[in-house]
Structures are given as structure tokens and as C-alpha cells.
């Protein structure tokens, strides 16, 4: 008879093999390729640290890194705050809250392609968009996507529009776990909405807020879709991110070694946050 344990090894192996083949081995290859000169087709040659030197001397790299840092700061503050406020308001309307959260999630379940193209054409476009209409009939507004000073914030605005509903639903779900007796006691003592939030709701959902903080940090250093779709890093590379920078190395100039180098740098920032994430999630191991 086949031992029971053998079955369980067989159960875990398809998932493990798939993940190792698609994720782990190519990730290790990325480490190797970062030290090589490779166009993706011919044989790679070892070049030591010269990819790192070239990337770190490139002003675009530092601009991209700065954009990622700005993106992180924006996403850790604006959608977090809006989501916490919205979730707190929904707590006082638990019946209609279920309907509100579905509406707020609509942009989140649509594809980045659909969202980005819709915003470009019917909101931002100076001819066919809402901003163009306002600009022609009421007061002049410049297309924020064509201005190097505003493009990053316009793209971030679209991404926040798409993402904040996710945070709201997560916070709302966490807040509903707040022990009823604590809330009741607070209301009996005449606490106002802010006092209830600050002294009871927020401390109760702090682990969830911490987890979202970490996840948003990770995603901010990896963000790609909306930037690539709306501005491709432009105008004049003002919205270049580490992800779009690496992507153009790999698929425009076929400098895969440099693409791998940038990928390692952005993964490093994600990794710091990931360590914190694993540490926060470890409590789930023994559940």
C-alpha cells in the first residue's frame, strides 16, 4: 500500500513545481543576468557590476526612483485616508453600507486597460474629454497629462480612483469585527464620531491598517499598468517608474542585463516591505 504521506507529497508537488518553474528559477536567472550583457537571444557574457554602474549613473534611473517614492507617499496618504473616512461613515449605515461598497468596488474590478483608455478619451482628452469640454465652454484647463509637472499626479489620480474602493471594503470589513460592547459603551458615554474612531475603531483595525500599509508600499514600488497605459513614462520621462524603465530596457533596447538590474533594485524595495508582510502574516501559520 502506498503510504499516506506519499499522497500528500504528490498533492503539493504540482503547485510547487509550477511556482518553481515559472517564478523561482526565472527569478534566480534575473540575479545572474544582472551581471551579464545579454540581448535576449545570443549568448550572455559576464560583465561584473557594469550594469549596476551604468544604471546608477543614469539620471533617468534616479528620476524613476524618485517617482516611485512620490507614488508611495501619495498612496500611503490619500487613498488610505479616504478609505478610513469612508469605512467609518459606512459603519453608521450598516444596511446601505453593503450597497455603497459594491459601487465603490466597480472601478477596482474593471481592467486597467478599460479604466486607462476611458479616462484618457472621455475625461482628459482636450477634444473629446470632459476637461476639454469644460475648457472650451467655461474656463481653460490644460490637459494634465501633457504637462511634466502634473502628469504623474494625473496618472496617480486614475490609479487612486481604481484602487481606493479596495481599501475601503477591507477597512469596512475589519471595522465590523469591532466588539459591539466597546462601541455601545462609547455611545453611552456620549463619545462623538471622531472619538469613537480614534479610541475604539482604529486601535481595533490597526493590524489590518498595518498590513495594507505594507502592501501599498510593495505595490507602489512595482506599479506599472496605469503609468505604462496612460503616459508610457512621458512626457519627457516625467512619469518614468522603475518598472517602465526596466521594461523599456528589456523590450525596446534589448538590454536585458540592465532590465534585470533595475528589476533587482525595485524588488529590493518590495522585499523590505515583504519581510514585514511575512512577519505580520506569520500569526496565520498556526491557525
Amino acid at each position: 500500500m502506498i503510504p499516506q504521506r506519499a499522497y500528500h507529497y504528490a498533492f503539493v508537488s504540482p503547485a510547487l513545481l509550477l511556482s518553481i518553474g515559472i517564478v523561482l528559477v526565472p527569478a534566480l536567472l534575473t540575479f545572474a543576468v544582472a551581471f551579464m550583457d545579454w540581448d535576449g537571444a545570443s549568448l550572455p557574457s559576464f560583465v561584473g557590476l557594469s550594469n549596476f554602474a551604468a544604471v546608477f549613473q543614469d539620471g533617468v534611473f534616479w528620476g524613476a526612483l524618485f517617482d516611485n517614492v512620490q507614488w508611495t507617499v501619495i498612496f500611503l496618504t490619500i487613498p488610505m485616508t479616504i478609505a478610513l473616512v469612508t469605512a467609518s461613515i459606512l459603519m453608521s449605515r450598516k444596511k446601505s453600507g453593503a450597497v455603497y461598497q459594491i459601487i465603490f468596488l466597480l472601478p477596482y474590478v474593471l481592467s486597467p486597460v478599460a479604466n486607462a483608455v476611458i479616462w484618457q478619451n472621455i475625461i482628459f482628452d482636450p477634444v473629446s474629454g470632459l476637461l476639454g469640454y469644460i475648457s472650451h465652454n467655461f474656463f481653460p484647463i490644460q490637459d494634465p497629462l501633457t504637462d511634466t509637472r502634473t502628469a504623474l499626479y494625473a496618472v496617480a489620480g486614475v490609479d487612486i480612483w481604481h484602487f481606493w474602493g479596495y481599501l475601503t471594503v477591507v477597512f469596512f470589513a475589519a471595522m465590523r469585527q469591532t466588539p459591539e460592547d466597546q462601541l455601545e459603551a462609547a455611545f453611552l458615554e456620549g463619545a462623538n464620531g471622531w472619538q469613537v474612531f480614534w479610541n475604539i475603531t482604529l486601535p481595533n483595525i490597526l493590524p489590518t491598517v498595518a498590513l495594507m500599509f505594507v502592501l501599498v508600499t510593495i505595490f507602489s514600488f512595482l506599479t506599472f499598468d496605469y503609468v505604462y497605459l496612460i503616459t508610457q513614462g512621458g512626457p519627457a520621462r516625467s512619469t518614468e517608474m522603475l518598472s517602465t524603465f526596466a521594461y523599456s530596457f528589456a523590450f525596446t533596447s534589448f538590454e536585458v542585463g540592465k532590465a534585470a538590474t533595475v528589476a533587482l533594485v525595485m524588488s529590493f524595495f518590495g522585499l523590505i516591505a515583504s519581510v514585514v508582510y511575512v512577519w505580520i502574516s506569520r500569526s496565520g501559520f498556526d491557525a
Partner: protein
Amino acid sequence: MTTPSEANRPTVSHFASTAFLVGAVLISVLPLLLVALNTFKPHADIVSNPLSLPTSFNFQNFARAWNGGHFATGIVNSLLLSGSTVILTLTCASLAAFALARRHIRFWQLITIYFLCATTVPIQLFLFPLYFVYAKLGLIGNVFGTALILSAINLPISIFLLRAYVLSIPRDIDDAAFMDGANPLQTFWHVILPLMRPGLITVAIIVFLNSWNEFLITSTFQKGREHLTMTLGYLSMNGTYATDQGAMMAGAFILIAPIIVFFLVMQRFFIAGMTAGAVKG
């Protein structure tokens, strides 16, 4: 629980918070409403006022969008890609979730930590070598090759969601099946799998939407006109149809309307899965 003060007398703060919610709803749906509003309008009407109501219902926009966005090809590729990703992910993840929850294997902790790390691994960390390996193997444009990648990306979160369901099934049930002479595969198939059906539905919906909407992997690996998915086909219209916004809006409508309906029908499962991993007690 309804708080007495909020329920009985409308206060200034209650009014302010209602105004906030209404504003949030408007901002959330405004771009989508604009799509619905302009779907039937000719280009000239959209340019003169994107907020005006359509004066006639012209379905020509849909015909041009359907052809321009290559939606006939796209819908087949998208269904094949998302469908095979869901099947592969569910198969691998449910088996792994069972094994990891029951802990009969050595290294279960190590494997769990590996998948936990894989949840947040950046796609760019493995994308570039993988692409050129795929190119060498002639897998670029192969929906099943791309489905392998999307499955690998969706595996970790699926395993953790399903593992929680297995953990909620008492071990006594395994033991009873064992006493009756079932081997672990029979136990899994006849006992565990039916009990974790809600979890399977939740994961299927989340993985389906993820792979339907995915952009970075899909756009990199599904190159070529005959390999376009629905989203990529629509993206190919962007710019070339700048002077035919009626078709652009109709294309957007074709793309988002089925997803919105799907989400509204399945939202209960979707929200359950979304919050399960994120809410920490």
C-alpha cells in the same frame, strides 16, 4: 446595531457624511456613466458635449468597435486564457491547500513560507528571463503557455484562501474516511472538495477576474493580432480611433458591461475572498 442618535435625529455630521458618500459615488461612477451616455452618440456629438443625452440610438458604433477592437478574436482568447488559468490554479491550489493544512509532509512550514513570499513577488523579478525562455520555446502567443504564468502568479493567494477552508474541516472527517478504507486522494475528492465548495467558487471568481484583467504578462506574452485578448484588442483601438469616440465608447461598453454584470452577480463571493486574507484579528 443602530446608534440611537444617528437613527433618530439627523445631525450636521450625518448630513456631511451623506454628502461625502454621494460625492464618492459620483466620482466612482462618473467615468462609467460617461461611457454609457456616449456609447450611442456620433463623434461630433461627443466632442460638442460629452455630458449631453443621446438624441438617437445608433448601433453602428458597436459594429465599428467590434471590428476595430478585434473582439471576435479577443473573446475566444480571453475565455481560453482565463478559463485554463482558473482550472489549472484551482487544481493545483486545492491539492496543495489540503496537503499544507494537514501537515503530513515534512517541510510544510518551509513550503508555506515559500508561498507566502511568492504572494508579493514582483512580476518584473522573473519576467525578463522567462520571456526570452518562452521565445526560445516558441510559446509567445500561446494562450496555454501564458495561462501557466498567470496560474503561477495566482497560486499563492489561492492556496492561502483554500487552506483556510480545509482548516475549518475537522480532521476527524479525514480519519473516518481513512477507517472506511479511503486513500488520501479519495478522501480529498469525495470528502474535502465538496466541503470546500464555497471556497472554490470564491477563488475561481477572483482568479477569473484577475486573469481577465491582467495587463503586464498578457500584453508581453500575447503578441500578434491573432493572439489578442479582449482588453488588448480594445487597447489597439486607442489612438487610431481618436476621431471616432463613438466607437471608443462602444468598445469600452462591450469590455466593461459583462464584467460589471458578472461582478454584481458574484460580488458576495468576491468580497468574501478579498477581505478574508486582508482582515487581521
